[in-house]
């Protein structure tokens, strides 16, 4: 018989195995990056949505993801200075703060999150997936680095479905643009068998990730699918998809969540496990990174648990059934790119959120509208109204930014969250009266 779980132990002193594993994986990746020039390893800068990690790994190339560096800088309170540095160089206050954080970091010596200098790219792999700013971002980086650029244009899923000529277009670009440049940079030939093996591992880890995310359908949910979710997607969305380490991480994570589920525990948060799951929420939009823990605590304090989120789908919608398919390696990469959340038309995004509200038995949904991110933000006010109308579930709306600390007003955000949850409470009371 299991001992009664201690819900009050803060995470500061309680780390689950998967957390330690992820920490080690990320640290070792950054260490490998820091020593890449000495070890003659080549480095490719690319983006999270539509990343081609398996393909890069098949050439023994190391990926660097500037969004991850930016969000890490945000969490470590470094982004404000980096943004100011970029604005000093003439970058507008109006544009994406990920870009400015990255440019600022570069201008200040390109010191990565672990305090070690990141290597310059040997290739900029511009996977233009779901975000126009990506294109401008790498055009800006191109001015800074003397290295080739491979451009992969991924068409938008405006019609809500993947069209065959979109897949053909991407595969053609992989064959004629991306792979030749990867061959050139790495000095290796394209090895399709190696890619297939990596894709097989991806699918294995994807199964476990989906299981973890869908565990939130249980009441109480054993996970937080937004704040906790960003940790769960970390290895999958970055450098570890298609690796044995990635598979091991997701197996460990699944085991832990299974254990929590058996014990009837809620999610582990930095403040401990919530006493009670009072509200089940769906969240649309990325989190704020500069006050991430404070933001999470605002939900924790109210007993609000996020059971599904769109942000955890920016690197792939595995819960809708997509798996990397080793039998069609390039086609599956194309379909993966096409299917990332921000590459979906607004009606599709709306339907997905509506489905989440039903499937995860949510009491409400909240939109965190991000100043920096037009790809997410444009249309969210319409989505709010449409979702309320179609589900009868009230929505909340807050505004913040990714990594610009000037745009996180803690008092204002907290006030809005509390007011929104009070409204949910009143609605609930009204329904039972």
């Amino acid at each position: 018989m299991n001992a009664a779980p201690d819900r009050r132990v803060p995470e500061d002193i309680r780390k689950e195995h998967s957390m330690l594993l992820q920490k080690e994986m990320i640290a070792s990746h950054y260490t490998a990056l820091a020593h890449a020039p000495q070890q003659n390893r080549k480095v490719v800068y690319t983006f999270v949505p539509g990343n081609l990690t398996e393909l890069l790994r098949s050439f023994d190339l190391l990926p660097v993801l500037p969004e991850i560096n930016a969000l890490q800088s945000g969490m470590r309170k470094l982004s404000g200075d980096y943004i100011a540095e970029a604005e000093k160089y003439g970058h507008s206050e109006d544009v994406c703060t990920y870009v400015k954080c990255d440019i600022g970091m570069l201008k200040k010596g390109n010191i990565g999150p672990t305090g070690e200098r990141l290597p310059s790219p040997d290739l900029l792999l511009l996977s233009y997936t779901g975000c126009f700013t990506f294109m401008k971002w790498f055009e800006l980086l191109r001015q800074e680095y003397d290295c080739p650029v491979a451009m992969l244009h991924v068409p938008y899923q405006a019609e809500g479905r993947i069209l065959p000529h979109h897949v053909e277009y991407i595969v053609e670009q992989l064959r004629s643009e991306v792979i030749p440049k990867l061959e050139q940079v790495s000095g290796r030939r394209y090895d399709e068998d190696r890619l297939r093996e990596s894709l097989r591992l991806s699918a294995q880890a994807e199964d476990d990730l989906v299981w973890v995310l869908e565990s939130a359908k249980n009441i109480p949910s054993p996970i937080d699918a937004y704040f906790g979710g960003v940790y769960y997607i970390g290895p999958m969305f970055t450098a570890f998809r298609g690796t044995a380490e990635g598979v091991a991480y997701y197996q460990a994570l699944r085991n832990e969540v299974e254990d929590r589920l058996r014990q009837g525990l809620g999610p582990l948060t930095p403040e401990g496990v919530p006493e009670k799951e009072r509200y089940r929420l769906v969240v649309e939009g990325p989190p704020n990174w500069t006050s991430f823990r404070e933001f999470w605590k605002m939900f924790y304090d109210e007993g609000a648990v996020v059971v599904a989120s769109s942000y955890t789908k920016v690197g792939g919608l595995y819960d809708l059934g997509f798996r990397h398919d080793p039998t069609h390696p390039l086609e599956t990469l194309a379909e993966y790119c096409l299917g990332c959340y921000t590459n979906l038309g607004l009606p599709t995004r709306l339907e997905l959120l509506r489905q989440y509200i039903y499937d995860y038995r949510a009491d409400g949904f909240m939109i965190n509208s991000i100043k920096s991110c037009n790809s997410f933000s444009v249309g969210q006010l319409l989505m709010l109204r449409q979702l309320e109308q179609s589900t009868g579930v009230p929505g909340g709306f807050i505004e913040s930014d990714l990594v610009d600390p000037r745009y996180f007003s803690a008092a204002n955000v907290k006030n809005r969250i509390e007011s929104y949850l009070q409204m949910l409470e009143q609605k609930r009371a009204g329904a039972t009266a």
Partner: protein
Amino acid sequence: MSPELAAIVERAQLLTEDLSLTSVRTWKQAVAGRKAIGHMPIYVPRELIHAAGMLPVGIVGAGDRLEIIRGDAYFQSYICHIPRSTIELALTQRLDVLDGMLFPSICDVIRNLSGMWNILFPDRYVRYVDLPQNFDPQAGGTYWRHELDTLRNDFVRLTNRPIEDDALRRSIAVYNENRFTICELYRARSLRPWFFPVSEVYPILRAGNVLPPENHTALVREYLRLAPLEPDRRDRDQSRVVLVGMFCEQPPVGVLLTLERAGCWVVDDDLLLGLRWITGDVSCDGDPVQALVDAFLTQSAETAARYLPDGEHGRALVESVRRNRAEGVIFCAPSFCDPALLEQPMLIARLDREGIPHTQFKYSEDTGQFAVIREQAGTFSDSIRLWSEA
């Protein structure tokens, strides 16, 4: 001003200011069954719309001529202005005359606006025109061909009549002529800008958003004939500048007038760039759809909304400065315009390397205060003249 010139300028101004698209309604009513297709900036293949017997109608928001009541409820404060006034136009039935809307892939705002259109107006024809960012004939070319074939089929369904290749070739020729004439106007203005004040040139150009291209070409030609006949128009000691950043959300005319009054001759700009996106003639021979594909791949204007495979940002701008003997560049971009504002540092770096003076400010289509712009542009113009004399 001669009565003839005054008449055509007034006509163009009325067309520009008419948010209810009366001229489009009149055009449709003239022949039963006519249809009109709206499109957002920057580029859509208007030749295909024209060949289908429909009228392409450029929509660039409502400028400073419409109070935004409902549109603001759809967009957060940090999003540019053009989508909110465009939604306002649609929600106030001003765009009902349009039988469809095209949203080209210029940025995430216009992209998501297409989805909003799908949700708000589910019974209307809406298409996101996803332009290729890969300019290789085998990759981007094949993809774009497929997109154009789809558009062509859509238009056939909308009009219930075929689009013959010959009709498309004729439309290509019509638009070649239109672009050539617009470029003639730009050349003429560059040579003698005092004959072609921006208060006239802008509405004359913008009339091309709503007029059939044949009529617009005739209008531009007439303007080109009449404007230099004005006896009172003389050169003044003004600085020659190129304007950059106005390819989508348009500035209020007051901004353009302010620049001129502050001592700047505008000798080139990227206003309404879609009217001259293709920088040369599209071939009228052979397969006309393929001709449109080839023109897009090889003759697209260099601007912030498209990928430049060679990374030579600012090359076209520097060429324009040289070609037009401009003395400086004014970056005037809409607030929150991702393409223009993200491109700007690259362009500035290039200008700095070339020793070309520049200044910058932002606007919104409903900007109402021009004093700061006037002061800034005036100072810039004065400083250029001082340097030139040195």
